[in-house]
């Protein structure tokens, strides 16, 4: 019987198995070698795979991604770790202008992965808590993945590494050691671009991803006691969006709330809500609702961050409003 493993351990296993299986896979990042990474995702990798494949870099996010692009077009499969995903902003140009456009402009695939810890609720303050998916959502050529479970974390990091396109892999650091699951036997690769039905229901759909999936499931548990069945759809991949999945759920339950940990404006949640309003309007009994973080930087103090983050209480309130519409 397989032991339950944490979300972090699942990512570690996925990376490890891909490094074992494919000698072209290698890693670049800050403090990923002897130290094993700020969150220990790469602990033990240096001993097993050596400094040629587990490369500590200077604090140069742009050059890390640039070098990964160069190695990727030469036939290798680099995996870049951002120590905290907030620092991906320092590599924005290399990602959106270089990596994302090569295939379209000159036919050159760029098989790289940029991964790292995202998300709040760990008192990380403004620069260790962000959810940057919205910045990248509208960059054609990128793929974006944000798993909510250990099985998906392992399965999707494998698919991200095998994908011939640049993939951004956002790990929710709140989940790293807080959830544990038994992983499915075997390879366990999970396809990019497919949402997951986290809970089936008939009365209202919550579309979400990352740590917010667990918030939605908590709220759904509370509603179940009242005989109200929420459907929870875990997007898993944010780019390309599994539009069919959320449109089908909208047509089924006729009420949709999009739940995101991002600030509201310009979020991935905004795109999901827009597509449902545009393409499933005739099936809706209420306007598409959104529950997001407010349009401020992520605050530090527990009282402030708790007020800032979406949570189950806020979600229950919004769902009740939507059900009574």
């Amino acid at each position, binding site marked *: 019987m397989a032991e339950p493993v944490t979300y972090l351990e699942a990512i570690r296993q996925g990376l490890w198995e891909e490094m074992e299986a*494919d*000698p*072209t896979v*290698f890693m670049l990042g800050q403090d990923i070698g002897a130290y094993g990474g700020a969150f220990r995702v790469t602990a033990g990798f240096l001993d097993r795979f050596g400094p*040629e494949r587990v*490369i500590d*870099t*200077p604090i*140069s996010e*742009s*050059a*890390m*991604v*640039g*070098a*990964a*692009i*160069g*190695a*990727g*077009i*030469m*036939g*290798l499969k*680099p995996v870049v770790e951002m120590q905290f995903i907030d620092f991906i902003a320092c590599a924005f*140009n*290399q990602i959106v*202008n*270089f990596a994302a*456009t*090569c*295939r*379209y*402009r*000159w*036919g*050159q*695939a760029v*098989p790289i992965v940029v991964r790292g810890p995202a998300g709040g609720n760990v008192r990380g303050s403004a620069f260790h808590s962000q959810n940057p998916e919205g910045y990248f959502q509208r960059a*054609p*050529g990128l*793929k974006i993945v944000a798993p909510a479970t250990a099985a998906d974390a392992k399965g999707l990091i494998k698919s991200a590494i*095998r*994908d*011939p*396109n640049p993939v951004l892999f956002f790990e929710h650091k709140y989940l790293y050691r807080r959830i544990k699951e038994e992983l499915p036997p075997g390879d366990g690769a999970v396809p990019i671009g497919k949402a997951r039905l986290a809970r089936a229901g008939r009365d209202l759909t919550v579309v979400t991803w990352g740590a917010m999936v667990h918030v939605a499931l908590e709220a759904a548990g509370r509603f179940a006691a009242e005989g109200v069945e929420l459907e929870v759809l875990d997007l898993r991949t944010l780019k390309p969006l599994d539009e069919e999945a959320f449109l089908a759920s909208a047509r089924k339950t006729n009420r949709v709330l999009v739940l995101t940990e991002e600030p509201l404006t310009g979020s991935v949640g905004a795109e999901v809500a827009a597509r449902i309003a545009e393409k499933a309007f005739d099936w809706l009994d209420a306007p598409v609702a959104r529950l997001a973080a407010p349009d401020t930087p992520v605050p530090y103090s527990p009282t402030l961050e708790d007020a800032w983050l979406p949570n189950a209480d806020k979600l229950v309130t919004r769902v009740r409003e939507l059900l009574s519409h």
Partner: protein
Amino acid sequence: MAKMSRGLGPLHPQAAPAADRLAKTSLGRDQQLELYRYLQLTRMTEARLGNLYRQGKVVGGLYSSRGQEAISVGSAYALAPQDVIGPIIRNLGAMLVRGVQPREVMMQYMARADGPTGGKDANTHFGDLARGLVAPISMLGALIPVLVGVALAGRMLGRDLVAMTWIGDGGTSTGDFHEGLNLAAVWNVPFVLIAEHNGYAYSTPTEKQMRIKNIAVRAAGYGIPGEVVDGNDVLAVYEVTKRAVDRARAGGGPTLVEAKTFRMKGHAEHDDAGYVPPELFERWRERDPIDRFHRHLLAAGLASEEELAAVVAEIDRVLDDEVDRALASPFPPPERALEGVYEEPPPPEAEAGGVGAP
């Protein structure tokens, strides 16, 4: 660490009688004539592009390397076939040395269907790893870490490969210049960066870009060799690049080469460069890299006027044909605008193939 290999003094050299004395070279007659052909091919291709621009055939902006041809040609000529380059906008000569055909660039500028990007991107913005070419993006400096990654991959894959790219004086102010060169140094990868010090970044003169006179001194900050070379002497550029490439290939790590030159046109064709004092153009015209090399070939007895004229005439004939072929290509079909954003994943059984050749 910076070494003044030609004793040119701190800023841009004045024209002097000694200016015609080119660097000593190991290159023989045939190779020097090949350099001459590439220099002329670069300038004459750009002249044809200028004609096409004035005829309204060029859809976007047109960029010239006039006055700087010796840098692109001389540096690219120092590479081996397996080496990889990332040319930027004034490196047409390097692309021609790598086997790019003039019509490819013409079709790019004219946004035609049969250009290397099929109308999706402009000018010299195309790549082809089969010819060791990485396409640039317009953001300067970005290619530096990318080519450092190419060099790293070459080492990891056990290939005898040197990676090279270019940057202007303005581009040395970017973060990627610093991050990339530092990374190359720390990794000690086979990488060469040629900094073309041409006096102006668009309209901004170098003294508003940096407080140093020689970009090459920056190499000391990364613990790598830096060399200054007369960028208007194709033989000097070849020799200094060859040294850097040989060192890189032997495991000696990266080199920063600064080539002193001057941009003889505006930033792009629309720019009349009215901000450049006319006497600078006059002074640098006397140091024109092609004229100097032409005089060198004659003075050294390597070619006659007639032989050099024949080279030019042959290029003219080639370019007539290249222009015709480029003009014959249609604009791309509109539906192409939506194609090719993503690479399709290979079928599962094809994934076990290991390292794919570029």
